[in-house]
C-alpha cells in the first residue's frame, strides 16, 4: 500500500481493492496516473503494455484516462500480437468517433485489414466495427467489401458486421455491399449467415429499393428457417433444445420486413410461420423469444387470419406464463396489435384482467392500459365492474388516470343513464379524492340532464354522504345535487331499494351539511359549495324553521376569514330581504348543454367547464361573482324588479333626474356624470343623460330596463341597499338640497352630510362602503349651487382633500367645474382605510361666484357618525 508505484496490473488492482475510503482510492489512482503519464512522456516502450492495461482499469473505475489515447494507437501499431490486442481494446474504450486522433488510426487499420494473420484482421475489423466514424467508413469501405468475400469464415462474419457500422454511418455506401451480402445468404456457417442476415436487414431498413431487391431471397430464408426447425440436435448451436435461436430470430425479423405490405412474400412464408408458431416449445425463455418474434412477423405482414388468431393466442398463453418478462412482452405486444384484431384480443380479456393483480407494477400498468382499450359497448358492464374492483385496490398513482378513463368509457358506452350515474357515483365513492374536476362537472351535468333520475341520484348521494364524507369529489357532487334537488330529496323516495325508502326530513339534510362543515375534510371549495347549496335549499324547503336554521348557519359565515365565503354569505343573507325575488333567483339551474367529450389525457385549459362553472369550479374564484351575477340575472329577468324600475324614467323630471343620475353614478362608481340639465329640460333629455351616466360603466347596455335591473342587482350584491332607485322619487323643489333629504327620508341607509355651505355654495358627502373591498369607503362629494337664478353660475370649482396617515385617498375628477344655478356637480373620493380609523379630512375649497368673486376656504371634516356607511 505504501509502495509508491505498482508495476503490474495485478498489484494495482489489489491495492485499489484494499482501499478503505474513496479518498485513499483517489490518492492511489492519482499517484499511479502520474506515473503512467511520465512513463508515456519518456516513451518507455517496454512498459507501454502494462501501462495501458492499468490505465484501462483506471478508466473503468471512472477516472480520467484520455491522456492514454495516443499511446493506445501506438500500441496498436506494434507488431506484437498481444500489444495489438490490448492497443485496439484501449482504442475502442478510450476513443469515440468525435476524437480527432481517430484519423491517425485509419492508417494502422488499413494495414491490419490486409494482414496475413486472420486474428489481426479480426481485431482491425472489430475496432472499425465498434468505433468507425463517417470519414473512416468512407476510407476503409473498399477493404471491408473485399474482406466480405474472404474465404475465411471468421473474417467474413466480422466484415459483415463491420459493414453494418459503415452503412449506418454513411448510408450511401450500402450499394457497395449489396452483391457480396446476397452471396452471404447461401453461406453454410451459422456465424456468417447470422451476420449476413443482420447486414441485409440493416440495408433493407435503410433503402426501400434494396428491400424490394431482397424480396426474391424470401424462399432461401424460408428454407434456412425450415432446416433449423426440423434439424435434429446439434450440440454446437443448441440452446436448451432449440437449434440456434439467434439465427432463427434474425431470419424471422428479416422476413418481417420483407413481407410487410407484400402479399406474395407473405404467402411464401405463411407455412413456415405456422410451423414455427406451433412447433416451438414454450416452456423456456428461448422458445418464447422465438414465438415472440414470430408473432411480430405475423402481425406485421399481411398473413392470413388463422395465423393472426394463432399469434394472438400465443400472446394469450404468454400472459399466463410465470415469467414477468414474458407477461410484460405479451402485454406490450397486445397493446400494439389491438387495432389489428380486437376480437381475438377480447378472448383473453379475463387473463388480462388477472394481470391487474400482478405483483409487478409495470405489468399492472400495461394491463390497465390494455383493459381500457378493450372496452366496447358489449363488454362495458363486465369490464367496468372489474376496473372498479381494481380501482379499489389500485396504487394512488393509477387512480387519477383511472377515474378519468372509467368516466370517459362510461360516458361513451353507457347502456343507459342509470348505469352511467351508478358507475360514476361508484368511482366517486371509491376514489373521490383522485377525480379530475372535469369529471365532477360532467357528472353534475349528467344529473341535471336526466330529469327522471334526479330523485334517484339525490337519494343515492345522500345515502352515500351519510356513510362517508372523506371522498372530496363525492362530497362536492353530493352537496351540489342535494342543494339543487333538495325538494325531491325530502319529498320522499319512491325507490324500492332498501336504503332509499327511508324518509328524509329537512332537518336531516341540514344536519348532514352541518356535519360535513364540522368534519375534518371540509376545505374552502367544499364550504363554498355548502354555502351556495344551503342558500338554494331555502327555496327548496318549505318549513320556516329550516330556513331560519340555514339563515343562522349562513350568519356564521359572515365573519369567515375566507373572503370568498364571507362575501357569498353576506350576499345571500341580503337576499333574504327580497323574499319576493329570492325563489326566482334560486331557481333550478338550466339544463346544461352537452359538451364535447373530453379526450382522455388531454388537459383542458379552462378550469371552469362551461356554465357549470359557478357551482363546480373551485379555482374560478374571481369569476364567481360574475357568474353569480349572470345567475341572478337569469333568475330575475321577467321578475318584479323590471316593472319597478321602468317607472323611474318617465316619472322623474327636472332636477330629480339629476338625483337619479347621482344615484346611478353612485351605483356605477359615479364617474363622468355630465352636468345636470336645466330644470326645464324635457324628460327625453333626462333619459339620454341617464344613459350617459350608465355609459361609463364597463357593462354594455342593451336596453334601459335590462341595464337598470343589472344596476339594481349589482347594488344589491354590493351589500348596501339603495331603495331609492327602485321607487319613483317625488319631484322636489329646485331649491331643496335634494340628496340629503330625499335619500335620508326614504331608506335611512344612505345619508348625506353637509360639509360646507356658504355664499350659496354647498358641499355634501355621501359615504358608502365599497362593494369590492370592505376597507374602502367611497365618498360622493356633491357641489351644489344654492344661490338660485340671481346668484348666477359658479365656476372654477376646485376641491382638495387630505386624509390622516393611516388612510389612503384617491380622487376621481369632478364631473364639472362649473355649476349652473340650482345645479350640482359630483366628485368621487375613495378612501382606503385598512385600520378602520375614523375618517377625517382636511379640505380646501376654491370657487368663483358672480357675487363674491373668488373664494378660497380651508375646512375640516370631523368624520361620519358611527354606522354611517
Amino acid at each position, binding site marked *: 500500500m505504501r509502495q509508491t508505484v505498482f508495476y503490474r496490473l495485478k498489484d494495482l488492482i489489489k491495492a485499489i481493492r484494499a482501499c478503505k475510503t*474513496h479518498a485513499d482510492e483517489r490518492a492511489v489512482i492519482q499517484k499511479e496516473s502520474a506515473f503512467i503519464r511520465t512513463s508515456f512522456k519518456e516513451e518507455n516502450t517496454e512498459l507501454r503494455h502494462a501501462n495501458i492495461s492499468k490505465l484501462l482499469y483506471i478508466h*473503468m473505475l*471512472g477516472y480520467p484516462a484520455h491522456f492514454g489515447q495516443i499511446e493506445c494507437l501506438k500500441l496498436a501499431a506494434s507488431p506484437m500480437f498481444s500489444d495489438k490486442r490490448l492497443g485496439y481494446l484501449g482504442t475502442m474504450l478510450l476513443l469515440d468517433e468525435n476524437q480527432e486522433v481517430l484519423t491517425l488510426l485509419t492508417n494502422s487499420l488499413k494495414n491490419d485489414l490486409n494482414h496475413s494473420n486472420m486474428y489481426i484482421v479480426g481485431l482491425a475489423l472489430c475496432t472499425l466495427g465498434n*468505433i468507425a466514424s463517417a470519414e473512416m467508413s468512407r476510407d476503409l469501405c473498399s477493404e471491408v467489401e473485399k474482406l466480405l468475400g474472404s474465404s475465411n469464415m471468421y473474417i467474413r462474419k466480422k466484415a459483415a*458486421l463491420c459493414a453494418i457500422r459503415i452503412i449506418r454511418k454513411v448510408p450511401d455506401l450500402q450499394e457497395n455491399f449489396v452483391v457480396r451480402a446476397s452471396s452471404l445468404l447461401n453461406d453454410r456457417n451459422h456465424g456468417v449467415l447470422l*451476420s449476413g442476415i443482420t447486414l441485409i436487414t440493416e440495408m433493407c431498413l435503410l433503402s426501400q429499393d434494396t428491400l424490394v431487391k431482397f424480396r426474391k431471397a424470401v424462399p432461401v430464408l424460408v428454407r434456412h428457417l425450415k432446416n433449423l426447425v426440423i434439424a435434429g440436435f446439434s450440440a454446437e*448451436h443448441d440452446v436448451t433444445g432449440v437449434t440456434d435461436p439467434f439465427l432463427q430470430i434474425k431470419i424471422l425479423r428479416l422476413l418481417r420486413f420483407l413481407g410487410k405490405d407484400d402479399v406474395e412474400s407473405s404467402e411464401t412464408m405463411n407455412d413456415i410461420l405456422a410451423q414455427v408458431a406451433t412447433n416451438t416449445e414454450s416452456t423456456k425463455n428461448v422458445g418464447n423469444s422465438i414465438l415472440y418474434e414470430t408473432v411480430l412477423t405475423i402481425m406485421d405482414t399481411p398473413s392470413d387470419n388463422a395465423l393472426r388468431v394463432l399469434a394472438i393466442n400465443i400472446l394469450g398463453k404468454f400472459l399466463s406464463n410465470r415469467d414477468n418478462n*414474458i407477461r410484460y412482452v405479451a402485454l406490450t405486444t397486445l397493446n400494439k396489435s389491438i387495432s389489428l384484431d380486437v376480437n381475438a384480443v377480447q378472448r383473453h380479456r379475463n387473463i388480462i384482467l388477472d394481470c391487474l393483480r400482478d405483483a409487478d407494477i409495470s405489468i399492472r400498468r400495461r394491463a390497465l392500459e390494455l383493459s381500457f382499450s378493450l372496452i366496447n359497448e358489449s363488454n362495458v358492464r363486465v369490464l367496468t365492474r372489474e376496473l372498479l374492483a381494481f380501482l379499489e385496490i389500485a396504487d394512488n398513482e393509477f387512480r387519477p388516470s383511472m377515474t378519468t378513463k372509467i368516466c370517459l368509457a362510461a360516458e361513451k358506452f353507457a347502456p343507459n343513464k342509470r348505469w352511467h350515474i351508478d358507475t360514476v357515483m361508484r368511482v366517486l365513492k371509491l376514489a373521490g379524492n383522485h377525480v379530475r374536476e372535469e369529471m365532477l362537472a360532467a357528472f353534475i351535468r349528467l344529473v341535471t340532464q336526466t330529469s327522471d333520475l334526479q330523485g334517484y341520484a339525490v337519494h343515492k348521494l345522500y345515502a352515500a354522504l351519510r356513510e362517508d364524507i372523506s371522498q372530496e369529489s363525492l362530497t362536492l357532487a353530493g352537496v351540489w345535487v342535494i342543494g339543487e334537488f333538495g325538494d325531491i330529496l325530502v319529498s320522499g323516495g319512491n325507490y324500492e331499494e332498501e336504503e332509499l325508502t327511508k324518509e328524509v326530513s329537512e332537518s336531516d339534510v341540514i344536519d348532514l351539511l352541518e356535519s360535513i362543515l364540522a368534519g375534518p375534510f371540509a376545505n374552502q371549495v367544499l364550504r363554498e359549495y355548502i354555502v351556495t347549496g344551503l342558500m338554494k335549499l331555502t327555496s327548496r324547503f318549505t318549513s320556516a324553521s329550516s330556513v331560519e336554521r340555514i339563515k343562522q348557519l349562513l350568519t356564521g359565515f359572515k365573519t369567515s376569514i375566507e373572503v370568498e365565503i364571507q362575501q357569498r354569505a353576506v350576499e345571500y343573507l341580503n337576499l333574504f330581504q327580497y323574499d319576493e325575488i329570492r325563489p326566482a333567483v334560486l331557481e333550478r339551474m338550466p339544463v346544461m348543454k352537452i359538451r364535447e367529450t373530453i379526450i382522455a389525457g388531454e388537459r383542458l385549459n379552462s378550469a371552469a367547464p362551461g356554465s357549470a362553472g359557478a357551482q363546480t369550479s373551485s379555482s374560478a374564484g374571481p369569476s364567481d361573482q360574475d357568474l353569480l351575477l349572470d345567475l341572478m340575472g337569469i333568475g330575475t329577468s321577467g321578475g318584479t324588479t323590471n316593472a319597478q324600475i321602468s317607472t323611474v324614467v318617465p316619472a322623474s323630471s327636472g332636477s330629480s333626474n339629476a338625483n337619479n343620475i347621482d344615484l346611478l353614478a353612485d351605483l356605477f362608481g359615479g364617474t363622468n356624470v355630465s352636468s345636470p340639465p336645466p330644470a326645464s329640460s324635457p324628460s327625453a333629455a333626462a333619459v339620454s343623460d341617464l344613459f350617459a351616466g350608465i355609459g361609463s360603466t364597463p357593462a354594455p347596455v342593451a336596453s334601459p330596463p335590462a341595464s337598470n335591473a343589472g344596476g339594481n342587482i349589482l347594488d344589491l350584491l354590493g351589500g348596501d341597499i339603495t331603495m331609492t332607485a327602485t321607487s319613483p322619487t317625488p319631484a322636489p323643489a329646485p331649491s331643496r338640497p335634494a340628496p340629503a333629504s330625499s335619500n335620508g327620508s326614504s331608506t335611512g341607509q344612505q345619508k348625506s352630510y353637509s360639509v360646507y355651505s356658504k355664499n350659496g355654495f354647498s358641499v355634501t358627502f355621501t359615504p358608502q362602503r365599497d362593494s369590492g373591498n370592505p376597507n374602502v369607503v367611497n365618498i360622493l362629494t356633491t357641489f351644489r349651487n344654492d344661490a338660485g337664478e340671481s346668484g348666477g353660475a359658479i365656476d372654477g370649482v376646485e376641491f382638495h382633500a387630505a386624509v390622516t396617515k393611516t388612510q389612503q385617498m384617491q380622487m376621481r375628477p369632478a364631473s364639472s367645474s362649473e355649476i349652473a344655478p340650482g345645479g350640482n356637480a359630483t366628485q368621487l373620493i375613495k378612501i382606503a382605510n385598512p385600520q378602520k380609523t375614523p375618517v377625517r379630512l382636511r379640505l380646501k375649497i376654491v370657487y368663483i361666484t358672480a357675487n363674491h368673486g373668488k373664494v378660497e376656504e380651508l375646512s375640516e371634516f370631523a368624520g361620519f357618525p358611527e354606522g354611517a356607511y
Partner: protein
Amino acid sequence: MSHNSFSHGGQKCATFWNTKIPRSSTEGAADSKDGRSRAGRRQRQNVVLKLTKHLGSMAVFGNYRYASLYFITGVGPQDNELLTLEIIHRYVEVLDRYFGNVCELDLIFNFHRAYFILDELLLAGEMQESSKVTVLQAIHDQDAIEVEDANEERSK
C-alpha cells in the same frame, strides 16, 4: 445497444456501441462504485435509469446469480427483449467455460479478457457468433499467439 456487466464491486466491463455519445457521459454507468458496501436494488435501478437516459432506449436488466454478477443491456425499441436475455446468458456461459466457473474476481483481474470475449460474441452491437465452441476457439487461438509472442520475447 450497450452492454455492461458488473457486480456489487462496481463496473467490471462496459461497452458502448453508440460512440456518438461522449464517453464521459456514459461513464455515469460507472458511478455505481460507491455501492461497494451497500449494493442494493436501488443502485442498480439508478444505473438502469442512467443508461436508459443516455441511450434513449429501453434497458433489459438481467439478474444472473452466477456469482452475483449483474448484467445490464440497453436495447432499442425494435429489439427482441427476450432474446437479449439469451445473449446475456450466452455470454455468461462462454465466460464460465473460459474461466471455469466464473466469479467476480476473475472478471476483476481479467477485465480485458472479458472484453476480448465480448468482442468475439458481439460486434457493432449485433450478435456475431451463435456457436460457443467457435467463440472459445477464437479466444484460445489468440491467447496462444500471445503466449508464443511472449516466449519469443523471452528467448531473445
